[in-house]
């Protein structure tokens, strides 16, 4: 059988990859993709715990459904904002969107 | 079919007795099943292509293929397939090679993966998943991704436009499609394809089979319309209209890669008809007679398979008939139709089905009464509003 720690470690790896991507990528859409990776890793953790802890009885899966829904809503609004950025700055490179810098 | 499952069990027992690890017979059985399905898809696609050419010809008062192979050109599809195989494989200069090569594979893999839960006959499902219909819907959404990959990687403005239109159309029509599928699922109480077919057994009044198309006629029509749009068939043909965008998203594909797209499109048509047959037309249910010389189980299965295929190909015939009869919808008309007409109808169907299931059939009287009152109110408002506008224009 697969120990629970395997799933948790995999979730940790995916989450840190997502964190690295969100902190270092310059393309705004790539940042959004890294955020989706992080949300996926969190979902994996929830579902793994829902499977291995019988007393929770699928609470983890219910929460994962909500996470998926919120991720979809956030991706839609985030991409609309990115489109607005592109229209105004002609670039999606977050390094070049620095009008409010001192 | 009791025989098939027993056969597989005996095969496993034999290999275990010979000391072969359990993995090997599993892989052998899976390979055989996938090969059978692939063979079926190829043959069925070739037949459907020939059939489409014949149907379009007769609707347009001409003959269609008549020469290749003798009788009514039955070998035309085989000749076309050989021609496509022998063509030169061209990848455009500025194209993203990896994504370009991957796109037709993604589309075909998605079209093929949906064949896992198709209930061909009692006991003849590859895997009767307990989320059967949800699985098929989610796999169909993978096709859209492959279309976008194909359009983008071709490095061609027509491809990108065609891909974006196709993706927008597919995504828009997916919503009323899934909602209209929920009606039969709610009545049967299960998402498993095999159990959905079994929930439609029996007859009303001694002759009318208890198929879901009768209580859910609205859902069936909505589903069929959305299915036409998902397969990019006329009248929702804009993404690959020959007279519009050259060939849409697959304009840069030639030879074997184009053949894969083509196969995937016809496989998708069959899948969509299979879903409609399973959920609305009773799947493999149909009159059966005992055949002499064959055990009852085998005759049962053969008749089930026969009726399933008859119903599927009837729906495919209707799809082809509509293609050569109706005019194409413009892109904005298409999107309006999905979001402003089909989606409210699908929601209304879902709500009424839910109400009837919970509160019993009397609810239908109330719903009909409210609907009639609403229609009268809307008609009155429109007429008086029209008269007011006319009076303003005259003065």
């Amino acid at each position, binding site marked *: 059988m697969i120990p629970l720690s395997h*799933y*948790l470690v995999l979730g940790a790896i995916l989450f840190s990859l997502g*964190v690295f991507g969100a902190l*270092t990528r310059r393309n705004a859409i790539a940042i959004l993709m890294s955020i989706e990776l992080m949300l996926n890793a969190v979902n*994996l953790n929830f579902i793994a715990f829902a*499977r291995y802890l019988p007393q929770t009885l699928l609470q983890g899966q219910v929460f994962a*459904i909500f996470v998926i829904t919120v991720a979809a809503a956030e991706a839609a609004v985030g991409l*609309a904002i990115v489109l607005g950025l592109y229209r105004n700055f002609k670039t999606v490179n977050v*390094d070049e969107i620095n009008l409010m810098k001192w | 079919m009791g025989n098939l499952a027993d056969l597989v069990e005996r095969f496993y027992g034999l290999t275990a007795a010979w000391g072969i690890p359990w993995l090997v017979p599993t892989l052998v059985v899976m390979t055989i099943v996938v090969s059978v399905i692939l063979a079926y898809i190829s043959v069925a696609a070739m037949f459907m292509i020939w059939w489409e050419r014949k149907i379009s010809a007769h609707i347009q008062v001409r003959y269609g293929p008549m020469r290749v192979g003798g009788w009514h050109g039955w070998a035309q599809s085989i000749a076309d397939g050989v021609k496509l195989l022998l063509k030169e494989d061209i990848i455009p200069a500025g194209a993203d090679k990896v994504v370009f090569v991957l796109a037709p594979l993604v589309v075909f893999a998605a079209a093929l993966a949906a064949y896992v839960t198709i209930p061909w006959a009692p006991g003849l499902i590859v895997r009767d998943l307990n989320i059967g219909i949800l699985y098929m819907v989610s796999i169909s959404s993978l096709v859209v991704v492959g279309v976008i990959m194909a359009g983008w990687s071709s490095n061609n403005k027509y491809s990108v436009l065609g891909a974006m239109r196709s993706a927008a159309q597919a*995504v828009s029509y997916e919503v009323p499609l899934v909602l209209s599928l929920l009606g039969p699922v709610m009545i049967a109480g299960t998402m498993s394809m095999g159990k959905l077919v079994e929930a439609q057994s029996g007859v009303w009044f001694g002759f009318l089979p208890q198929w879901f198309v009768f209580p859910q006629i609205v859902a069936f029509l909505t589903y069929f319309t959305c299915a036409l749009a998902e397969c990019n068939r006329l009248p929702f043909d804009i993404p690959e209209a020959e007279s519009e965008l050259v060939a849409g998203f697959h304009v840069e594909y030639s030879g074997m890669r184009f053949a894969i797209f083509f196969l995937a499109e016809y496989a998708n048509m069959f899948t969509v008809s299979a879903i409609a047959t399973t959920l609305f037309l009773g799947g493999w249910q149909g009159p059966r007679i005992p055949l002499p010389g064959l055990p009852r189980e085998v005759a049962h299965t053969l008749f089930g398979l026969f009726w399933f295929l008859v119903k599927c190909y009837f729906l495919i015939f209707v799809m082809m008939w509509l293609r050569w009869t109706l005019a194409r919808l413009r892109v904005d008309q298409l999107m309006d139709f999905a979001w402003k007409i089909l989606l409210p109808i699908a929601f209304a169907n879902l709500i009424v089905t839910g109400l009837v299931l919970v509160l019993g059939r009397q609810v239908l009287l109330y719903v009909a009464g409210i609907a009639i009152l609403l229609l009268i109110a809307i008609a009155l408002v429109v007429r008086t509003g029209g008269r007011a506008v006319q009076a303003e224009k005259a003065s």
Partner: protein
Amino acid sequence: MTLQLAIFYVVAAFTVWAAAVVVLGKNIVRAAVALIFSFCGMAALYVLLDAEFLAAVQVLIYVGGITILLLFAIMLTSRIASKTARVVNDQVILSAMVAVGLLVGLIYASTSGLVMTAAPPLLPETSPFLGRALLTTYALPFEVVSILLLAAMVGAIILARKE
């Protein structure tokens, strides 16, 4: 090494490789395609965890919805012939340290507890249970999430409209 463990390792390696391409890939379209692969890998992992309904929902919503949104946004905001030189910004080293530190901390937290391997008895089907739970115990968050989706839809339409 049971079959399930072998499948887990294969799927996990595939998902991690796809995630690495998402995070480090130069070509944004290839990164999006790799994201699709990582979502499919996650769906396979959910099936391994007996969460079949969530696996189908993951494919339907993430692959069939969110990645299509991402691909549309990529197509609308990138020039076909642009090959920008740099993928990562100036804070690579600091971010790498943060990410590695986070990874080490999380792995330590994950592996230092009880070793749970015994699979508890399962529900035969998760879908009816989830459906009932969403409409009885979790009815309030369910309604709130519907309102959230409505707000997100209206907001996205208004933000993305051409004035």
